[in-house]
Each structure stands twice: as structure tokens, then as C-alpha cells.
């Protein structure tokens, strides 16, 4: 049961914000702005370097919570939030951690649905928080029981 996993945290996972990965990502979201991909433009900016698009943290690793096993089908990404202390810099190291924040169920027009709230955090090499990310994953009852959806 997901409820028993509330409060579980992963071990931190180390990421490096790679220039090539940021460029590919910026292009894939149709936002290849110089601040993300052009080294000169980054140097000339107020940041003195390139930054990553605000949704880039979705690509990073945050460690695994072994007990968390999600069904492969019947999942809906319901909500997504990012909160930043500052922009994410190209080239920096980010330590990602994931935590199960909440799980609750609601009955609606599609039957009983489960809502899993997952928080992820990214901290820099000095241990300062850069961003938090929250996802709400909606799990329908059929998927939860392991039935074909």
C-alpha cells in the first residue's frame, strides 16, 4: 500500500547539468534561447554562465525508493510544480533526493482513484537547496489491483 510509504526518502543521487543535455532539452521544448545554449551569451548574462530551462530538472536522477513499485499502466500525471531558490546553472553538480509526501484516495466519476504526491529536491555541492519539485501521480483502481487497463 502506498500509504505506508509516506515519509520514505531516497539516498541522494549525484547529477551534473550537462551542456549537451540542456541544449537537446531546450530544442525539444522549442526554446533554444541563447541563455540556455550559447556559451558567449551565458558569459555576457547577469548569471555569467548558461542556465537550464525551468522544467529541465524532470530529466535528473533523484535516487530510488525501493519499496515504491508503480504499475506500468493506468498512471496519469495530474499536477507538476517547481519551486526555485535560484535558476539552475549549466555545469553545476546537483544532488537529487526523492520523498513520498502523501497518498490519498478519492472516489469520482471514474471510480476510486489514488493520488500519490512525490517531492524531489535538488541541492548544490554546498548543500544549499536549488529547487523542489512536486508531482501528483493519479493511479486508477484497475491499475492498482494489477489488472490490465
Amino acid at each position, binding site marked *: 500500500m502506498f500509504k505506508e510509504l509516506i515519509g520514505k526518502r531516497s539516498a541522494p543521487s549525484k547529477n551534473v547539468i550537462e551542456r549537451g543535455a540542456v541544449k*537537446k532539452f531546450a530544442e525539444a*521544448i522549442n526554446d533554444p534561447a541563447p541563455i540556455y545554449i550559447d556559451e558567449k551569451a551565458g558569459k555576457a548574462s547577469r548569471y555569467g554562465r548558461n542556465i537550464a530551462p525551468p522544467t529541465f530538472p524532470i530529466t535528473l536522477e533523484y535516487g530510488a525508493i525501493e519499496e515504491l513499485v508503480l504499475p506500468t499502466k493506468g498512471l496519469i500525471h495530474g*499536477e507538476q510544480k*517547481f519551486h526555485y531558490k535560484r535558476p539552475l546553472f549549466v555545469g553545476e553538480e546537483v544532488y537529487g533526493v526523492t520523498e513520498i509526501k502523501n497518498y490519498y484516495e478519492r472516489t469520482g466519476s471514474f471510480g476510486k482513484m489514488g493520488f500519490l504526491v512525490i517531492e524531489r529536491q535538488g541541492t548544490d555541492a554546498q548543500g544549499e537547496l536549488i529547487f523542489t519539485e512536486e508531482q501528483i501521480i493519479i493511479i486508477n483502481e484497475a491499475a492498482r489491483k494489477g489488472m490490465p487497463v
Partner: protein
Amino acid sequence: MTAMTEIKVGESLEQMQMPPVTRLDLIKYAGASGDFNPIHTIDEEATNAGLPGIIAHGMWTMGNLAKLFTPYVEDGFIEDYAIRFRNMVFIDDVLTLQAVLYKEEENKREFKVAVVNQKGQEVVNGTVVFRMYEVGMAG
């Protein structure tokens, strides 16, 4: 482009209409994001999942929407970006990106943001809190 400080409550950032969504858009996003869930790229898998066709990654749409704020990176940064995924996005959909300033508080500008499809449905909506680096006259 209007400077962020000149935008008044009730006014919009310049909205942007995107070219029709293609399969290649989603294949590129799958590669760039690492999200290879096949309902986003392979027809059969989408059909098997009970969908009428392949659907865009919600995060692809959310990623595109943020671009309305990219011209303002020298003025501040996105402090909060919160989105609800409301409707599915299919191949050939024509999406429009929108942001309206609804609240101004010291160095924060709060926007209601949405992506609307060709039928006028909001496929995603939410808020962006943009934090300005300087407070202007307040100092």
C-alpha cells in the same frame, strides 16, 4: 517586447501560437527527457492503453509554455511554476501559449498561464510566480 516592469495587472505576455504538434516533436522530447513511455510515440501502444492515438507528454507542453518567460531572464527568474494537466494533446493539435499578469506584489509578478488547443480547451493551466531581481523604487 514590453519590459516586465511595464506589464500591468490584467495584461498578457505576448501569446504564442505553435505549429501543429508532430510525432517528431514527441520523439525528440522522449529522447531529451528520457521519458520513453510508448503511449507518446507508438500508435499501437497508445491504442492498447485505450487512447484514440498517441498523446504528448504533459511535461512537453509544460516545457513549451515556460518559453513565454525566457525573454525576461535578465529581469528575474521563475520562482514557482505550478501546472495541472487538464486535457490530452494529440498529433496535429494547434496550441497557443498564454500568460496573464494577475497579481503584483513587491518583487513578485504572479501570472495565470495556460495552453489552449484549437477547440479552445485548456490542455494545461496553472500559475507562474516570476521574481524580479530589483525592487525598483521601493529601495
